C-alpha cells in the first residue's frame, strides 16, 4: 500500500493509496472535478513538508488533513445541498468512468454534516485505524465513534428516503 509522493511522475497507474485519497476527496465533495483539484492542491502543499514527517503513516495523515481542508474550503460557494458534481473544467482526454450508482452514493454522502462526513469517509477507506482517524480529527476515540455512528445513521436515512437497497438492514 506504499505511496510515494515523490514518485508521482514515474508510476503510471494510480497506486491503491492514491485511489483511496481520491475516493476520500470524492466522498467529501461529491464532485470528481473538485476532488482532483483538491488532490492536486493538497499534494502541492504537502510536498514541501514531507521531509519533516518521519513515517509513511504520518505523511498520509498530513495529506488527509490538508486534503480535507481543501475539500471543505469550497463548501461556502455552492448552495448547501447542491454540490458541484459533474461539471467539467476542460474536456480534454478521454473521461474515465464511474458507475451511476457510485455517483449517486457520493451525492448522498457529501450531504452528511461535518465532522461526521470525514469520520465516516475515513472509516470506510482503508487508510487509517480509528485511533489515527481520531487524531486527524482531533477527537477522542469515543467522540469519533459517536460521529461515525451519527453519520452512518444519516447516510442510511438518506439512502432509505431514496429507496436504495443499500439502506435495507439484513
Amino acid at each position, binding site marked *: 500500500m506504499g505511496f510515494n509522493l515523490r514518485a508521482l511522475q514515474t508510476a503510471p497507474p494510480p497506486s491503491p493509496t492514491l485511489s483511496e485519497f481520491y475516493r476520500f476527496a470524492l466522498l467529501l465533495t461529491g464532485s*470528481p472535478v473538485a476532488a482532483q483539484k483538491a488532490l492536486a492542491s493538497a499534494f502541492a502543499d504537502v510536498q514541501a513538508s514531507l521531509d519533516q514527517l518521519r513515517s509513511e503513516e504520518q505523511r498520509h495523515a498530513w495529506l488527509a488533513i490538508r486534503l480535507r481542508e481543501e475539500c471543505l474550503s469550497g463548501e461556502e460557494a455552492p448552495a448547501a445541498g447542491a454540490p458541484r458534481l459533474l461539471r467539467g473544467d476542460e474536456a480534454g482526454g478521454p473521461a474515465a468512468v464511474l458507475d451511476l450508482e457510485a455517483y449517486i452514493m457520493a451525492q448522498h454522502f457529501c450531504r452528511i454534516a461535518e465532522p461526521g462526513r470525514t469520520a465516516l469517509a475515513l472509516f470506510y477507506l482503508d487508510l487509517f485505524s480509528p485511533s489515527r482517524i481520531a487524531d486527524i480529527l482531533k477527537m477522542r476515540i469515543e467522540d469519533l465513534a459517536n460521529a461515525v455512528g451519527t453519520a452512518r445513521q444519516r447516510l442510511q436515512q438518506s439512502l432509505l428516503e431514496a429507496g436504495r437497497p443499500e439502506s435495507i*438492514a439484513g
Partner: protein
Amino acid sequence: MNISTALIYLQCYKAGERNDPMIEKAYRAVTNDSRAREELRKQQEFDERFKAVVRAIETPEDLQERLSATVEKKRAGGTKWKVTFPAILAIGSALASLAAVLTVMHMESVAHFPGREAADRIMDTANRMSGIEFEPVSQPTAQLSDWFYMHGFDGFGVPAEFNALPAVGVQVMPLDGKPVAQVAVDRHDSLLYVFHASDFGIGIPADGEWLIFDHDGWAGGIERRGNLCTLITFRGKPREMKAFLHTLSP
C-alpha cells in the same frame, strides 16, 4: 464496560481487522448480548455494502501523471494554476451500453411507432457521454423548468407522477439541431429525457399512456402529452419499469 457504552465504541468496529483496544474491549462486552450482537451485525452488513460501492469507484489511470503535472506547474511558480484534468465521473459504464433499439411493450406490446429511429438516436447519445456534460442539481424534477429554460429548452415539464423525483444532474443536449433535456434521477439510477415530439417526429398517441421498452438489459418507458415526450430508462426489465411507474403517484 456496559452495553450502551460498548455500542458507542462499536460504531467504529471493523470485522476481520485489528481494532483499537477499546473497540475490542467493547466487542467482548457484547459477546453475550444477543440484541447488541444483532445490531452490530446489521451495522456491519450496511458497512460492507457501502464499502463495496466505494471500492468500485474507479480512479482515472492517468491521475498520477495529471497530479504530477499540476504539482510541477504550481511549484514552478505559476501563481495561477489550472487543473486540466478531464472530469472523471461519468454517468458512465452503465450508460455506455445504453441501447439504441426500443422494444416497445406498452401494456400490450408495441413494436414500432413513428419516430422510432429518432428515439433510438436519443438513447444512443448515452454511448457518447462522459458525464462531464451534467450540471449538478439537487431538487425535485418538477422544479427544473427554469433551469432548462435558461439553458435553451423551452417548455420543460414532466408527468405529474415525476414531479417529486429527485434530480441530481441535468443538461440540454442538441440532437439534429434540436434540444433534448436530460436529467439524472436519484431513483432506480434512472435517466430521464424530455423533448418535443414534433422535433423528432415521434408519433405515439398524446394521451399520457406509457409504452414500455426493453433492450440489452435496459428498460425504458416513453409517453407523450401534447407535444412533449418523456422517456425514462434504467437498467432492468420491463416488468421492473412497469412496477416502477406504478409506484409513482401523481
